[in-house]
């Protein structure tokens, strides 16, 4: 028997999202993902002063705002052939990390975990604990996480004036120099957040979590004290519900590389991890294309375009279209991006082992974010200590009137790229490929579904269930950002 379900509106996905499911014999046979809004930032930027991008692009997204700023700043820096001085590079990494880690925290406590407090799980042994800790708007740990997040973002208040939508990030570095006493206060705030993670999220020192190097070590760590800290609570319910294999990915993991230093190196290397080949491949930006076949965009387009020559022309009546999102592909193939991909590419031992055994899944995507929380906070302490008060945070630059450039970064949700063309001192073309554009892409011209569309196939749907909770887990495991997607 075949039934069709329209699931939505989803919430806790930063924007609006609709998923159409075709269910055959009690399982999802096909999924179509619809980003149901068009915003038009790319055409909006055309004709403006190139530096106006620094005002517009953070406003694409209220949750990945700094990441958008960094991508634009890097595109402008590429154009102007300027690089931030060490203090500027450290400051930008601190701001990026502050946003990315806050997003991971928000995702875990506010977006992802509340679904496990649903009555459908009332009989499970961990349910009462999840309700007590993570129920929406009432869980004790969820409330504590909002408070920790509020305190955490005061770091960005100092470094960037405000969050979201700072304009302190520019091609030359940061417009806000930090003095020695401010650095002390920022260090104190970092340690305060570390204490929250160690007390509440991990129930263990960050170093202990970051040092877990295999699934066996993780399992042993979990078994020692299964209810202590929220990571172990997640591991308990994940094992009980079979999340290790729920919502598989394409096995190709894309990362543009995260936390770039002044010399151009990355704390987390860029590349493509091909799970089938077990090989790390270099990032080939020239192989990126966007296919608009099933998007309400670019009716006249007959073939996928590289974002450097991409276009965005809305057409709500285009036949065969079902979303406002294009289908990005790398060498014609679907890839997955996000914290898991970033760590797979960088070679993080635990995640390579876990995802090597079970593939990408709800389990490994969520685990990757928490591991990133444990790993990056100590880096931030090191970046703060590396600042040299009195030395410059910003380098002078001139944006040329002609040229093409690209700006890449890793947002919390994965690979974010801006492609910029400037002509006559004005923006001639601006194309943005956001992380969720990749993960929640529609089918391409060949009919190949996007990463989420494929991940949903096979999920059991009980008769009469109009909003299967497993679908919710898989959707949210990607930590989608729909407002970025529909830029």
């Amino acid at each position, binding site marked *: 028997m075949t039934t069709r379900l*329209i*699931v*939505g*509106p989803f*919430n*806790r996905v930063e924007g*609006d999202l*609709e998923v159409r499911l075709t269910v055959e014999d009690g399982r999802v046979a096909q999924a179509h993902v619809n980003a*149901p*809004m*068009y915003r*038009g930032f790319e*055409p*909006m930027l*055309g004709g*403006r*002063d190139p*530096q*106006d991008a*620094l*005002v*517009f692009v953070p*406003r694409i*997204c*209220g949750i990945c*705002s700094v990441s958008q700023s960094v991508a634009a700043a890097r595109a402008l820096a590429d154009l102007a052939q300027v690089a931030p001085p060490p203090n500027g590079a450290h400051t930008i990494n601190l701001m990026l990390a502050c946003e990315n880690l806050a997003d991971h925290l*928000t995702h875990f406590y*506010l977006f992802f975990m*509340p*679904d496990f*407090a*649903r009555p459908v799980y009332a009989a499970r042994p961990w349910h009462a604990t999840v309700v007590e800790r993570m129920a929406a*708007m009432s869980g004790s740990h969820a*409330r504590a996480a*909002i*408070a920790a997040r*509020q305190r955490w973002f*005061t770091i*960005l*208040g*100092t470094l*960037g*004036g*405000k*969050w*979201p939508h*700072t*304009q*302190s990030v*520019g091609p*030359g*570095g940061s*417009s*806000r120099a930090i003095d020695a006493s401010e650095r002390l206060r920022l260090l104190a705030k970092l340690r305060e957040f570390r204490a929250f993670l160690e007390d509440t999220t991990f129930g263990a020192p960050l170093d202990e979590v970051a040092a877990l190097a295999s699934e066996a070590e993780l399992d042993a760590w979990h078994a020692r004290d299964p209810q202590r800290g929220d990571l172990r609570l997640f591991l308990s319910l994940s094992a009980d519900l079979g999340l290790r294999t729920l919502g598989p990915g394409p096995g190709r993991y894309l990362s543009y590389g995260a936390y770039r230093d002044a010399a151009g190196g990355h704390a987390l290397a860029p590349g493509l991890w091909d799970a089938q080949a077990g090989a790390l491949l270099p990032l080939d930006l020239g192989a990126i294309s966007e296919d608009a076949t099933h998007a309400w965009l670019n009716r006249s387009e007959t073939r996928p375009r590289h974002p450097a020559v991409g276009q965005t022309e*809305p057409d*709500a009546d285009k036949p065969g279209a079902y979303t406002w999102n294009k289908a990005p592909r790398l060498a014609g193939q679907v890839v997955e991006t996000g914290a898991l991909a970033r760590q797979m590419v960088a070679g993080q031992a635990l995640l390579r082992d876990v995802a090597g055994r079970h593939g990408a899944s709800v389990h490994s995507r969520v685990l990757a974010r928490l591991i990133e929380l444990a790993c990056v906070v100590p880096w931030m302490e090191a970046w703060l200590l590396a600042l040299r008060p009195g030395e*410059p945070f910003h380098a*002078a630059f001139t944006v040329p009137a002609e040229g093409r450039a690209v700006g890449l970064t890793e947002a919390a949700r994965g690979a974010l790229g801006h492609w910029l063309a400037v002509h006559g001192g004005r923006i001639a073309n601006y194309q943005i490929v956001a992380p969720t554009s990749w993960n929640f892409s529609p089918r391409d011209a060949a009919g190949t579904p996007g990463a989420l569309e494929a991940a949903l196939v096979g999920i059991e749907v009980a008769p009469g269930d*109009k*909003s299967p909770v497993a679908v919710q887990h898989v959707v949210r495991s990607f930590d989608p950002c729909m407002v970025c997607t529909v830029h």
Partner: protein
Amino acid sequence: MFKVLWLQSGGCGGCSMSLLCADTADFPAMLRHGGIELLWHPSLSLASGEELMTLLDDCLAGRIALDALCIEGALLRGPNGSGRFHVMAGTGVPMISWVRRLAGVARHVVAVGSCAAWGGISAAGANATEACGLQYEDERKGGLLGAGFVARGGLPVINVAGCPTHPGWVVDTLMALAAGTLRAEDLDALQRPRFYADQLVHHGCTRNEYYEFKASAEKPSDLGCMMEHMGCKGTQAHADCNSRPWNGEGSCTRGGYACISCTEPGFQDPGHAFHMTPKLAGIPIGLPTDMPKAWFVALASLSKSATPKRVKLNATADHVVVTPAIRRTRLK
């Protein structure tokens, strides 16, 4: 309890993310203690899909008395007035239709952020999405609900403008509404709550000494006043950003960049590059609010010639290079 329904449309969700930065040790408790119940919020509520549909039906049918409808994001009327640029997921109905219907049953309607108030960034340039605010399209009254709209509680749309909004502005507005203390005279001529809109970003700006002497920043990270060269509109923008800082001790000017007047209608298309001050004969076109041009010119020229060396040198440095002289405080 004062029941609040929060929906998002043509925007970035940043006002919600900002709201979560409200200065409190327990966000849900702060709302509860203020008598506020969030019926549904896109980032905070468990309810999804069907559960939300039931709630919206209950509000429309009057089974739930909706005290405040908060809209975040611009209302996308395009293409060609159809609203199809945002069809609310799972409903097949354009968001503008949902908002029109829900505004009709709500006691108060609140525009959260400049997109919902005026169209904002979402309405920039050619405005291909036909984005507008709830009751304004830039500074022109009208918008989605029309110039004459008055919510059932007797107030027009309350414009908590800002890009994003300060969490304190939203919390104060909702708490005042819940307490029944927000009156028509508490809104300014653009329907913004006066508790924040009767102030200027300039008030409390940490660069005031540089402003006084027209000691100006010339490039990003300079400490000087950003009005003369860097596009700062803090002397014109209505908001209390420098007396009620952001995220602890921040504000745009404290972050080293210009105020772009994001609480004002039409800020998204200033007619010049944001990072540069447009000038006529060397004088900034946008003068401080309420200041006659002749006096500005006279005072600027006088104060420039009176600028202490310390202020002049520090203005173009990223840290204090000349410290203030130490004066004895006692009379001789």
